């Protein structure tokens, strides 16, 4: 029991330190929207890199990934490497740099503003915000679920699930309400560095107790020989590529990541960050996911609904160290969630609340009454997702994949609009609406449920895969085809202005 008290003390202390940083950042924040949401576009290399990185690091990567490596083998490293180290880096340039220039030229704060302005459409602007907030929901829920599981695992069930999930909910609401983007980014940086360090300590500790990497891998070869052979089981080429592609594109459309495309201080910052992506990804994911794989060889038992990382640490290291890692993981979930809630709040106030109150064209930059709307929105949203986290089925990876893939549907229509002047309002609207509709109908088995309701049995359903490729990829292609085909067949409406996306690079100076 004293171990449990010590462990809970460590977790609480860590979260309080993070909160302290937020309060400090709050004192430096002006009461303008650009400063609250974008820290006045002043992030340097380290802060931008780690705030984006820590935002990517969530329950999905830190618990879900090792769980998958534990149950299906370490190929997940390749999927995450391709996804976050290469595809995301390329999109960092293709989407990110372009958006940064366009945002700087026209003063955009959200993706919805950027598209709404170009296509002269308040509907498009509000639609993007609504879709984004919709897919944010399962992902915030995933963090709460991860935190709840972490606390249950750490205390062997002495502290129930809802306390962990509820605690993190409370923390992130507090955090977003006071800190703004600057505080979020600072804690992200501290957490990113901390996680990177701690995962290597964890691997070193476990391996020295288990007799080294070679011995641990030999144990895997003996217990799960399939794990070391590339591919097989869950890992088909189509599945690996589908997952890497849909998540990489999905990441770029996440409000909290997309908004970071607007916050770099200078072109130099974006340039420096590019080459660091693959390095960071290798440094973090190889040890984290190998830990899950080695745990399988070492015969570590993972309780149902539990996570492998705390289980293997519990078995091979000290209780206080397990608590430190769990605290780090919970902090990572918090930094993901508070970024999401902050960006979600800016979507809500700027792209839904303003147009609904007849202030679509507002350019004033004071937070004022909108801050109250944003805070109420955050509290309602986080509370609903907390309740949902108590009941939602599915593993962390499944829930995360659903959310990422929902966002991925937005990416190709947006890319086409950014680079092709011939894109029309009807074209991009068809691409976005069509792919979202397809993906939602496919993921939530809408046809099966409807037919069950009408004739008492699930008579029809969309295919679960397309020659091995996931519905997410099929939906992305559909969105691309619809955007281009409808644009070619329609003419520009009044108010469309492709020239707002023309950039020379001089904006950067």
């Amino acid at each position, binding site marked *: 029991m004293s171990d449990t008290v010590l462990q809970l003390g460590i977790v609480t202390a860590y979260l309080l330190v993070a909160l302290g940083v937020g309060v400090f950042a709050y004192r430096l924040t002006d009461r303008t929207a650009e400063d609250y949401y974008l820290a006045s576009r002043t992030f340097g290399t380290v802060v931008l890199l780690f705030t984006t990185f820590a935002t990517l690091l969530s329950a999905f990567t830190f618990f879900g990934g090792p769980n998958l490596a534990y149950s299906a083998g370490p190929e997940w490293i*390749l999927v995450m490497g391709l996804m976050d180290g290469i595809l995301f880096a390329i999109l960092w340039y*293709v989407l990110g740099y372009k958006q940064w220039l366009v945002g700087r030229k026209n003063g955009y704060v959200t993706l919805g503003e950027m598209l709404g302005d170009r296509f002269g459409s308040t509907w498009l602007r509000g639609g993007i915000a609504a879709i984004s907030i919709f897919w944010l929901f399962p992902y915030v829920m995933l963090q709460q679920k991860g935190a709840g599981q972490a606390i249950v695992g750490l205390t062997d069930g002495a502290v129930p699930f809802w306390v962990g999930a509820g605690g993190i909910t409370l923390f992130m609401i507090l955090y977003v309400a006071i800190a703004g983007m600057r505080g979020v980014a600072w804690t992200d940086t501290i957490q990113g560095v901390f996680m990177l360090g701690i995962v290597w300590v964890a691997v070193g500790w476990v391996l020295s107790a288990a007799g080294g990497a070679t011995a641990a891998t030999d144990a895997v070869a003996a217990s799960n020989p399939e794990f070391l052979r*590339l591919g097989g089981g869950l890992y088909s080429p189509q599945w*690996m590529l589908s997952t890497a592609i849909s998540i990489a594109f999905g990441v770029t459309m996440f409000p909290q990541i997309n908004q970071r495309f607007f916050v770099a201080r200078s*072109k130099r910052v974006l340039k*420096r960050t*590019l*080459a660091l*992506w693959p*390095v960071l990804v290798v440094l973090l994911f190889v040890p984290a996911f190998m830990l899950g794989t080695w745990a399988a060889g070492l015969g570590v038992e993972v309780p149902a609904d539990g996570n492998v990382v705390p289980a293997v640490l519990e078995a091979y290291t000290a209780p206080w160290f397990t608590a430190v890692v769990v605290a780090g993981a919970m902090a990572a979930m918090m930094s993901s969630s508070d970024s999401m809630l902050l960006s979600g709040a800016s979507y809500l106030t700027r792209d839904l609340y303003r147009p609904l109150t007849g202030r679509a064209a507002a350019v004033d930059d004071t937070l004022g009454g909108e801050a109250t709307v944003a805070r109420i929105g955050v509290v309602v949203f986080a509370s609903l997702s907390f309740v949902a986290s108590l009941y939602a089925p599915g593993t962390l990876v499944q829930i995360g994949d659903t959310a990422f893939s929902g966002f991925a549907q937005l990416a190709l229509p947006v890319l086409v609009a950014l680079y092709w002047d011939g894109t029309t309002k009807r074209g991009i609207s068809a691409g976005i609406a069509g792919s979202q509709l397809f993906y939602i109908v496919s993921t939530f088995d809408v046809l099966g449920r409807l037919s069950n309701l009408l004739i008492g049995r699930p008579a029809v359903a969309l295919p679960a895969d397309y020659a091995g490729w996931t519905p997410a990829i099929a939906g992305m292609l559909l969105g691309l085809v619809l955007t281009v085909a409808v644009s070619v067949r329609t003419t520009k409406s009044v108010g469309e202005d492709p020239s707002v996306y023309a950039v020379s690079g001089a904006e950067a100076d």
Partner: protein
Amino acid sequence: MSARTTRAGWVWAGSAVLLSALAVPWFLWRDGTVVAGLPIWLWWHIGWMLLAAVVFSVFARRAWGVGIEEA
């Protein structure tokens, strides 16, 4: 945009596709050889990611703006 920058753009686009295509060593499919405690396909991936970092840094220094900044 001049013909020269257009050509450079295609070369960089080709490099991006190649970097993506071989991040997973498909030619080692179903191979389970272990070297120095890790599967050999994982060593390939680690090396490939470092190569990607080098390519990205060369791109950032020499060709940044290709395909985006219009004259």
